[in-house]
């Protein structure tokens, strides 16, 4: 079993109004000094077998083309718990 973790974040130059709202709430709840909050998504994908070769490449492609929108988002992908 392989576990793939894909994190998707809005690009730095894209306004994140949700993050800004969370930032406001943190301040109202007493956390001082919050400089910035960015909100993103995390996908945890469990796949049979190991993720190698073509399947690894396909996972990368789908992380870029389905799980994220490269116009506004960056993604990072890592494989954890991969039993070789």
């Amino acid at each position: 079993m392989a576990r793939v973790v894909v994190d998707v974040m809005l690009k730095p130059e894209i306004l994140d109004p949700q993050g800004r709202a969370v930032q406001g709430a943190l301040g109202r709840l007493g956390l001082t000094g919050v400089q910035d909050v960015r909100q993103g998504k995390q996908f945890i994908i469990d796949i049979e077998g190991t993720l190698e070769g073509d399947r690894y490449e396909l996972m990368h492609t789908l992380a870029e083309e389905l799980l994220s929108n490269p116009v506004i988002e960056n993604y990072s992908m890592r494989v954890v718990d991969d039993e070789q």
Partner: protein
Amino acid sequence: MIPRVGVVTFPGSLDDRDAARAVRIAGGEAVALWHGDDDLMKVDAVVLPGGFSYGDYLRCGAIARFAPVMHAIVDAAKGGLPVLGICNGFQILCESHLLPGALTRNDSLHFICRDQELRIEDTSSMWTADFEAGQEILIPLKNGEGGYVADEATLDMLEGEGRVIARYLGLNPNGSRRDIAGIRNERGNVVGLMPHPEHAVEDLTGPTTDGLPFFTSVLNSLVGAS
């Protein structure tokens, strides 16, 4: 010749009936297209209606992009088929890369529903030819993720090539860059628009009938070309 205009229904589409009605009021034949079919039923144009396809899960339009009907529409649009994406349809066109940029959460975080003034900036597209350049119109706007974004180079390119087809007048409702309400592709057959012209085609139910020219434009373009 009465042009046949397909209106796609995805799971979660809301405005497909109004879009079909607008097509009929404009003088066309509305043809229902289903997301799961890749058969475009020999239509002459396609409207991607508003709503919340696939519940807006993942990102608005991100899953609809991969529907079988979209594969057929993307191919046909590249060959010149007129396609109008309204609201969620605009989001689907951006996710499909038929149009550049993306639509993001309104900067206010509020869902906005109001009648919106627009200025028609470009009348060279197949969906805006019946307007006068600079014409100001009032049609409904309703979106939660309608903020148009693209990098500066793309925005400059759209402006430089006259591909911004409509701009918001007055208060920018959603944080769209450069007040952009709608854009077209280079060829002018594909248009994406965030506000809803299909809700402004009859005095009885709309604030105006200012939305009607979007539909008559494409019908006249098609009849003129045949």
